């Protein structure tokens, strides 16, 4: 991605997320599968921009890569809990934390990512894929609602969407290693 493209995306996405927030939160599917990833993505875009303007951030990312990674992993995993999805609707403090912690998770993920070894990145990719499959499956077949604010149909739809994400993501990973644009030596 070029910097100009990043800037354009960032400038476009921030108002879109803010304006659409109420609408996205009316459904479990768009709340969890659209809004939360978008918040992380906006943070990631922002970090990408920052890195090009301040090379010191690269050094910072190198030095604190493990802490940054842990922060983003814990934050993202917490936001997969149905409990917080509900809480973000009824407790303004939790809603505030959502808007703060997830973009930060995107920022810290981008800052540490390039300093992580290949094997660790591979594990993270596979674990994310496995998590999408696990959560998607659970949401799809659970007889009870995990969120009080959303109906069972919505939850099952979310299950389908997460499994769909997993399929796309899996195909992306598979094609990138099987076909691979990169050629060393």
């Amino acid at each position: 991605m070029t910097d100009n493209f990043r800037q354009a995306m960032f400038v476009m996405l921030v108002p879109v997320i803010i304006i659409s927030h109420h609408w996205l939160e009316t459904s479990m599917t768009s709340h969890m599968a659209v809004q939360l990833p978008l918040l992380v993505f906006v943070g990631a875009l922002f970090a990408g921009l920052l890195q090009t303007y301040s090379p010191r951030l690269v050094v910072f990312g190198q030095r604190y890569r493990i802490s940054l990674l842990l922060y983003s992993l814990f934050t993202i995993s917490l936001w997969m809990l149905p409990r917080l999805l509900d809480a973000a609707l009824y407790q303004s403090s939790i809603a505030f934390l959502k808007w703060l912690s997830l973009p930060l998770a995107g920022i810290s993920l981008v800052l540490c990512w390039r300093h992580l070894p290949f094997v660790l990145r591979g594990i993270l990719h596979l674990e994310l894929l496995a998590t999408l499959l696990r959560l998607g499956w659970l949401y799809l077949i659970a007889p009870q609602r995990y969120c009080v604010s959303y109906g069972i149909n919505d939850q099952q739809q979310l299950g389908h969407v997460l499994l769909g994400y997993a399929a796309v993501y899996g195909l992306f990973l598979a094609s990138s290693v099987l076909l691979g644009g990169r050629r060393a030596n």
Partner: protein
Amino acid sequence: MTVVAVSLGLLAWWQTTQGFRAFTWESYRRLKIASHPLAVPNVLLQDQFGHLLDLNSLRGKVLVINFIYTRCPTICGYTGLNLSRLQRMLLQRSFQDRVRLLSISLDPHFDTPQKLKAYMLRFSNQLKTSWQAVRPVKPLQGQEMQHQLGVVSIPDGIGGFTHNAATHLVDQKGYLVRIIDEDNLKLTIDIIARMLLAAKTGINHDG
């Protein structure tokens, strides 16, 4: 540094899930209530005969509260059945004078006393018992109460609500102390018995 980060992360998980026990809002709410009882706000209610009563006027009795609406095509028939079973179990143990069962309507505009009476008749032809179906006289007051207790109902897309069906136990002092699955009658009656026993030994102490 890493240790600190891991500890902080685990702490955040621990806090959010009440020690890895609550992953949903409802289970979190139940654990929270069990450890921190919540004062139930007063609401002016109207029962199936049209009589008015303050919720506060029922202090001194254990209250078994659930939330229903009479047009509900699904769960409210099931919860009503469970409540009538619970009522029989209370009778067997002669608890009926010290316990009140309240089914509070989520749809007070539609659920007039006639509708509430019809709902009650689905489960028993005895209407003058310790079980009453009621509606908040001021709908806003009812909504405020639900909000404070954390009872959520959402439109189900076919004209009704998907709502919380759990059994809420309120102690003699007007505090919400436990929330139990609607079909777990054994646990419900055990806890009622414990609440009544605690009150009795409390009186003995005073005397």
